[in-house]
């Protein structure tokens, strides 16, 4: 049985752990609020962009000369998965769940005989994926995930890289994998195809959210005119749309990360509390046993005299 001192040390250490986790929980809560605000603030642009894409796409006749971002390269041999995770840990199953889905997807694609490349945004995802697929990771970005002051220009670096690779013919299909922020308690791993561009399907919940927000123009008389012509607008819109999707996924994932951390730290705080209670009972029992033992020793000593 451990000595009384050992119990005291143990209780003190659990207490300080509890302090840390509850502080982390509060930090995560305030960061979550900021992240949610930011995600909300980016909504008007995303919904306006979605509306414009729909309008332009409806006017475009798809032909062999349409932008490759829209129609694809005509093959689906090489897949690029863009995995958005957090840079930091201590957020429960946030990264693990996502990476598990990615791992299954990679295996599935490989079984179908497709080549897979991975682009990791966020340190944690890279660290976990490196164990199994270190040869598949072509590039990674860190310092973007989970920030509360992420600017579009920074997120756009990721999309620039993707576009450069696409133009160089490094892959045919690009899919974005991220944790969608559903609620504070739920983050849903989501696959969203970026290239070739898909209007909805698979991420219907996402796009509907945007399309619902689009106020349908009232009193539009006659069809839209485009300046310059549809094809060229589309050529400019598609890369921008790619950027905005990545920006949005980073914000969503950032909010999800803070929410996951808040939940995880809440659990940890509660567990630490339980542990302190349990240890205190054991400590008190040991103390009583010790006192009883001393009393017995004194009494039997006195009796012996």
């Amino acid at each position, binding site marked *: 049985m451990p000595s009384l001192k050992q119990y005291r040390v143990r209780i003190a250490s659990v207490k300080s752990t509890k302090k840390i986790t509850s502080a982390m929980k509060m930090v995560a809560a305030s960061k979550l609020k900021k992240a949610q605000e930011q995600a909300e603030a980016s909504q008007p642009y995303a919904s306006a962009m979605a509306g414009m894409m729909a309008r332009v796409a409806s006017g475009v006749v798809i032909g062999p000369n349409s932008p490759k971002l829209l129609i694809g390269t005509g093959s689906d041999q090489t897949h690029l998965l863009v995995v958005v995770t957090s840079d930091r840990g201590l957020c429960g199953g946030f990264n693990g769940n996502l990476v598990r889905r990615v791992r299954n997807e990679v295996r599935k694609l490989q079984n179908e005989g497709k080549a897979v490349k991975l682009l990791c945004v966020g340190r944690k995802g890279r660290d976990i994926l490196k164990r199994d697929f270190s040869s598949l990771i072509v590039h990674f970005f860190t310092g973007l995930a989970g920030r509360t002051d992420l600017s579009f220009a920074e997120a756009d670096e990721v999309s620039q890289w993707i576009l450069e690779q696409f133009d160089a013919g490094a892959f045919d299909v690009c899919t974005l994998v991220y944790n969608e922020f559903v609620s504070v308690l739920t983050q849903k791993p989501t696959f969203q195809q970026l290239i070739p561009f898909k209007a909805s399907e698979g991420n219907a919940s996402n796009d509907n959210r945007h399309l619902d927000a689009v106020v349908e123009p009232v*009193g539009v008389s006659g069809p839209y*005119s485009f*300046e310059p012509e549809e094809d060229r607008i589309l050529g400019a819109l598609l890369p921008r749309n790619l950027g905005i999707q990545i920006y949005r996924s980073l914000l969503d994932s950032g909010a999800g990360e803070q929410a996951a951390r808040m939940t995880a730290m809440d659990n940890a705080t509660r567990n630490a509390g339980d542990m302190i209670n349990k240890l205190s009972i054991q400590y008190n029992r040991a103390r009583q046993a010790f006192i009883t033992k001393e009393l017995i020793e004194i009494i039997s000593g006195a009796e012996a005299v």
Partner: protein
Amino acid sequence: MAQTTATTFNFELVSPERRLLSEPARMVTIPGEEGHFGVLPGHSALVATIRPGVVEVHGADGGDVRRIFIAGGFADVTSTSCTILAEEAVNVSDLSLESLEKALGRLKEDMSLTKDDIERSRVTRKINLVQAKIAAVSGKIAA
């Protein structure tokens, strides 16, 4: 809706980060890729790309004209609204000629140091942007 008699329309300026401006306007002039165009209430529906330049907003109250520099983007115009999706937007009055020229000098220095083609095109883009800003501040129409 009293569209025919409306003298203002809803003007919105949004950047990826947030909504910058949402207010009624009497007229807005936009530097479209294929030339400047003005938007008045009842404009025909139009989608256009914007090159770096100055957007002029004539507010509903008939006060001063607000000049906003935009680093390219898209405009979505209907008869009752005009939405600009901007990559970057600053009030022209917030730009200072001095610091811009300093930035231009630095970029030109960078340009002479870089040899990489990709890097060079990046710097060129930045230089064009700063030059457009300078043109906006000095009151000329950006070329």
